[in-house]
């Protein structure tokens, strides 16, 4: 509104100025030329005033309306912070899904090797978004069974595994199913585990140090 008022004021002054100047003009053939130049001058002034409105700093006028939040709506900073928390949570979930998927993939890959039995595979990845290795595999832990239950039925020749004899001792405390970590395997099993670790490392383009083997009984 202030801009329009200013524009109208300018136009009034310009018209008065033009009339004033026209009175000064000589009454001869030159009058037409001088009037033409004065008309150009008035056009310049009007265009400058209109240009000031068109290219005005509307952002400055709109800023209070943009920043003013309506009642009942949380502050913009709170919304942004909640969005950031949601984003971080989603990233962590995606990383966890990725890690678990890799673990399952490694277990399936290692399951192709019949020399050792992989109980579990644990994958650690770079979780710092600022790290240049973000999302890459940091370490792989292979939990291998020290003594593979390969009890074959004598004479069947089909290699089927049988369930070990179950012994029930009443009154004794139950032993953990996972067994003891870092149980001692045999030399053949250690070689097979090293080969498996190398296969996993090659498959995922890791260094051999990044694949660690642990034995459980």
């Amino acid at each position, binding site marked *: 509104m202030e801009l329009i008022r200013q524009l109208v004021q300018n136009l009034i002054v310009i018209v008065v100025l033009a009339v004033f100047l026209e009175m000064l003009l000589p009454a*001869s053939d030159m009058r037409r030329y*001088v009037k033409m*130049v004065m008309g*150009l001058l008035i056009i*310049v002034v009007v265009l400058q005033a209109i240009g000031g409105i068109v290219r005005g700093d509307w952002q400055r006028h709109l800023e209070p309306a943009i920043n003013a939040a309506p009642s009942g709506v949380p502050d913009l900073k709170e919304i942004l912070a909640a969005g950031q928390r949601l984003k971080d949570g989603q990233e962590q979930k995606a990383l966890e899904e990725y890690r678990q998927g890799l673990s399952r993939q490694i277990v399936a890959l290692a399951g192709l090797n019949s020399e050792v039995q992989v109980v579990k595979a644990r994958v650690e990845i770079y979780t710092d978004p600022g790290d240049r290795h973000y999302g890459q595999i940091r370490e792989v832990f292979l939990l291998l069974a020290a003594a593979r239950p390969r009890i074959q039925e004598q004479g069947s020749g089909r290699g089927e595994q049988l369930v070990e004899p179950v012994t029930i001792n009443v009154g004794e405390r139950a032993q953990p199913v996972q067994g003891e970590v870092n149980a001692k395997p045999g030399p053949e099993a250690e070689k097979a585990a090293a080969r498996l670790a190398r296969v996993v490392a090659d498959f995922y383009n890791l260094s051999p140090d990044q694949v660690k083997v642990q034995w459980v009984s």
Partner: protein
Amino acid sequence: MEIMQIVGLGIVAAVLAVTIRHNKPEMAMLLSIATGIILFMLVLGKIGSVIDVLRDLASRANLNMVYLGTILKIVAIAYIADFGAQICRDAGEGAVASKIEFAAKVLILVLAVPIMIAVLQSLLKLVP
């Protein structure tokens, strides 16, 4: 009453010019020129105050003072050219008077070029 002085001077100069034109036409022309210059000098101080008012109006309208100066120069060119052309016509040199007017028109157009450029730039600035 300055107007009485101006009118009196003009009438005296006109009577003298008419009187001597038959015998000394060149002197009549010089008398005419001198009278014109004196009359111009008499009103020059008054024009200064008018120009001050014009400057004030222009500054109120946020008008660039360069443009106002150009307009005033153009008005002055028109007046001076008209003055010279009239004297030449009085002396019977209509061709020279036409040349003076032609030169004045060219000078006015030359002075109008910056204003035309300003119009063009203002129009182009409006285009997004």
